[in-house]
């Protein structure tokens, strides 16, 4: 309870005046009576000193109590209680892998859920949105007034094996629910301090945990061409104590290496060994700790398809590198054996069969160069939905001059400069080709990101059966046929650092302090006023109590 006008307590000094006046007035007055013998019995009644004292001062006590109540009222007492409702709350709960760290049979995520539940029930926000924060953040509860439903959804949520969320993604997701200033408070429940460029209240969960983790694992074929692979693994100890574990390495499902490791607190050990050439490798750490998800790592050596290429015309280093990125190129000098792909660069071919990549080359009768050179215009995408133009930026195909080209009617123009094709494609029963009207020697295209994209999509369009290995990001689940698990995952190494940073607030104390930042104020001055009035009325009735006893003598008509 607080007093908004504490100066009023100075009025308590009036109690001295009241006491003085009371005793001044209480002095015995001399009253002449007709018959003192009618009063004389009063003297005979024995009384204790306490009763006499009480008789003398009880009215003074009533007056002082009335003054006290009045002063209490004037001091504007206000009862401060926790904010019991209202406001718009954005609750972000960390759903990254480290939240699955278990302590006392409860994961950090379960602790976070309990904390969130307490928070919602105590704050009782009028509007609420809940976001689960991980690398791909998820809007668990859109902005709603239905707290019960929000709680139900929240409590049924599960953490992911993803790494921490990007702040930009979180802010984007928050903005999808309203302007940021519409949220009275943004609360982030996480095991590590969020780095969000936004005023958020961090409610930490989790205590320092015991964790030995494989934070790095890689497989690399030997450069000398021998069918062997170098395996490399790094094991880190994120605990405050020495941990030991047994690191095992597997090629496919065969154990090829095992070593016992003692790792100092916050220290790391690396292991390197040779292994036979295989496609998939696994590192597993046998250790008892609080976070098991980083005790296994996977490494996959991408298997590039082999492709026989008949190269016609000029060689080009950038095109060769781009092709080698996606396929194992085997060039052949002639067409004694049918090639998988014909690459023609700055040349002319006739009546070919098969699949061809025509770079600034004519291929009669489908692509014919007239011999004229024209001034180029700004490239524009003619067929935006075609697979070949996806992720390709037209300005990267900017030219100054270009050959005048005539295309067969069935050839589809994808990107054009004026009425001239820059990128075109054709597919029939026995012939399919892609025409790129750019001289790679003169064009900066080879230095732009669009070039490898264009090469890769061209290979895929021409030979869908190749099944080129797709780009694999760390910490994304990916299919690993032949592994014991149907899906394998490599955690982001940062998720292994499950010890909360040094100096972070204690898990439980901080939330309660944060939660009580908002208050509801209840004014209590009426209580004091009513008590004071009651006291004064009591004294009034006591003082004039004779008036109320007159009924006894009424029968005498007095």
């Amino acid at each position, binding site marked *: 309870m607080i007093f908004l006008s504490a100066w009023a307590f100075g009025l308590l000094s009036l109690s001295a005046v009241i006491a003085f006046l009371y005793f001044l007035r209480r002095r015995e*007055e001399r009253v002449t009576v007709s018959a003192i013998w009618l009063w004389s019995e009063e*003297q005979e009644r024995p009384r204790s000193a306490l009763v006499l004292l009480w008789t003398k001062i009880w009215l003074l006590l009533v007056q002082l109590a009335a003054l006290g109540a009045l002063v209490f009222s004037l001091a504007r007492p206000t009862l401060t209680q926790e904010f019991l409702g209202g406001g718009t709350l954005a609750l972000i709960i960390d759903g990254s892998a480290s939240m699955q760290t278990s302590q006392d049979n409860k994961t950090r995520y379960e602790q976070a859920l309990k904390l969130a539940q307490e928070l919602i029930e105590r704050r009782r926000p009028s509007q609420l949105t809940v976001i689960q924060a991980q690398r791909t953040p998820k809007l668990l509860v859109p902005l709603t007034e239905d707290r019960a439903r929000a709680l139900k959804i929240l409590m049924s949520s599960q953490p992911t094996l993803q790494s921490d969320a990007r702040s930009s993604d979180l802010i984007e997701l928050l903005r999808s629910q309203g302007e940021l200033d519409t949220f009275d408070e943004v609360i982030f429940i996480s095991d590590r301090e969020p780095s969000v460029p936004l005023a958020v209240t961090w409610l930490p969960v989790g205590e320092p945990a015991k964790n030995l983790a494989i934070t790095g694992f890689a497989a690399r074929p030997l450069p000398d061409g021998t069918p062997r692979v170098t395996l490399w693994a790094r094991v880190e100890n994120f605990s405050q104590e020495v941990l030991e574990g047994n690191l095992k390495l597997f090629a496919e499902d065969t154990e090829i290496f095992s070593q016992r490791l003692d790792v100092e607190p916050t220290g790391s050990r690396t292991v390197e060994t040779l292994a036979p050439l295989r496609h998939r490798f696994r590192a597993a750490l046998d250790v008892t700790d609080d976070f098991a998800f980083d005790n296994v790592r996977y490494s996959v050596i991408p298997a590039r398809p082999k492709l026989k290429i008949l190269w016609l015309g000029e060689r080009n280093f950038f095109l060769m590198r781009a092709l080698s990125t996606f396929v194992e190129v085997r060039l052949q000098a002639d067409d004694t054996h049918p090639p998988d792909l014909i690459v023609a660069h700055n040349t002319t071919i006739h009546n070919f069969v098969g699949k061809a990549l025509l770079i600034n080359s004519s291929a009669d009768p489908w692509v014919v160069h007239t011999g004229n050179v024209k001034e180029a215009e700004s490239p524009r995408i003619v067929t935006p939905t075609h697979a070949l133009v996806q992720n390709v930026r037209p300005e990267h195909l900017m030219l100054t001059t270009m050959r005048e080209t005539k295309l067969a009617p069935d050839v589809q123009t994808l990107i054009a400069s004026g009425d001239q094709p820059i990128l075109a494609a054709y597919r029939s029963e026995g012939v399919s080709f892609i025409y790129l009207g750019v001289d790679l020697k003169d064009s900066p295209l080879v230095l732009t990101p669009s070039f490898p994209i264009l090469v890769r999509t061209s290979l895929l369009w021409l030979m869908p059966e190749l099944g080129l290995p797709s780009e694999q990001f760390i910490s994304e689940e990916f299919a690993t046929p032949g592994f014991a698990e149907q899906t394998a995952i490599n955690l982001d190494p940062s998720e292994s650092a499950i010890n909360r940073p040094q100096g972070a607030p204690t898990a439980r104390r901080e939330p309660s302090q944060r939660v009580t930042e908002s208050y509801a104020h209840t004014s209590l001055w009426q209580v004091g006023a009513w008590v004071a009035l009651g006291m004064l009325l009591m004294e009034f009735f006591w003082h004039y109590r004779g008036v109320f006893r007159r009924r006894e003598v009424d029968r005498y008509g*007095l």
Partner: protein
Amino acid sequence: MSRSDLRRRFADESFWKRLSALQMLVRQRAEGQAGPWTTRRAGMSLEFAEYREYYPGDDFRYVDWNLYGRLDRLFVKVFHREENISVYIAVDTSRSMAVGEKLRYATELAGAVAHVALKDMNRVGVFAFAQRIVSGVPARSGPFHLQKIFSFLEGLEPLAPTSLSTALEELSKLPLRRGLIVLLSDMLDPEGCEPGLLHLLVKRHEIAIVQILAAHDLDPPLRSEARLVDSEIARELSVSASAVGRYRQRLLSYAQKLETFCRAHQIRYKLLSAARPLERALFEDLRGVLFV
């Protein structure tokens, strides 16, 4: 009370007229001179009483000759005698009557009663008493007697402690004609007044008591601690305001006891507050007690 106060009170013509319309209430035949009250004694009024055998010397004018014709014996007619009554007003002048102007109220009442009695040709005497009979005006009738009574009443002062029994016993020993004794007093005597009243009853007086209590007697204005000083004797007492309720109970119990005694002995009794307007006391409260 000053002379002018009492006379000013009765100078109001409307009050005087209303007062003149009142008539004393007398329940027994009184002894006295010819007056408005018919007595059992034989007299000269027009009201026939009885026949009596003629004795020599009786006035022949009262012989009933018709009866003599029928019975052949001489009878004389006896008539009731119309007499006035004697009203004795006893005013308490003890020092307790000074509390709350009870004495002033008593003298005003006494003046009014004297006027009502005198206008009907009754004899009115006034006595002042405290421990004993202090002074008095002999019973007389006639309009000039009222002035004498007023002068007497205006000169009354509270004098001494009360001793009702002694004073009333002394009153009973005075050579008074049987009549109505009007007692105007606060009747506050720790020894009681019953023995004195019995002495008066033995003398076959008719008694009417008007107990006059001050407003302060009925509701003492004590707000806290008070030092009570007795108006008559040298005695003091410290009490708190909480004693008022018990005091009031004792006072009313005392008055009730007196009323019960009066009812048992056919004494008319009325308790009046000195704060009550005199007009209301005379024309409302005392009807059936002093006045018809």
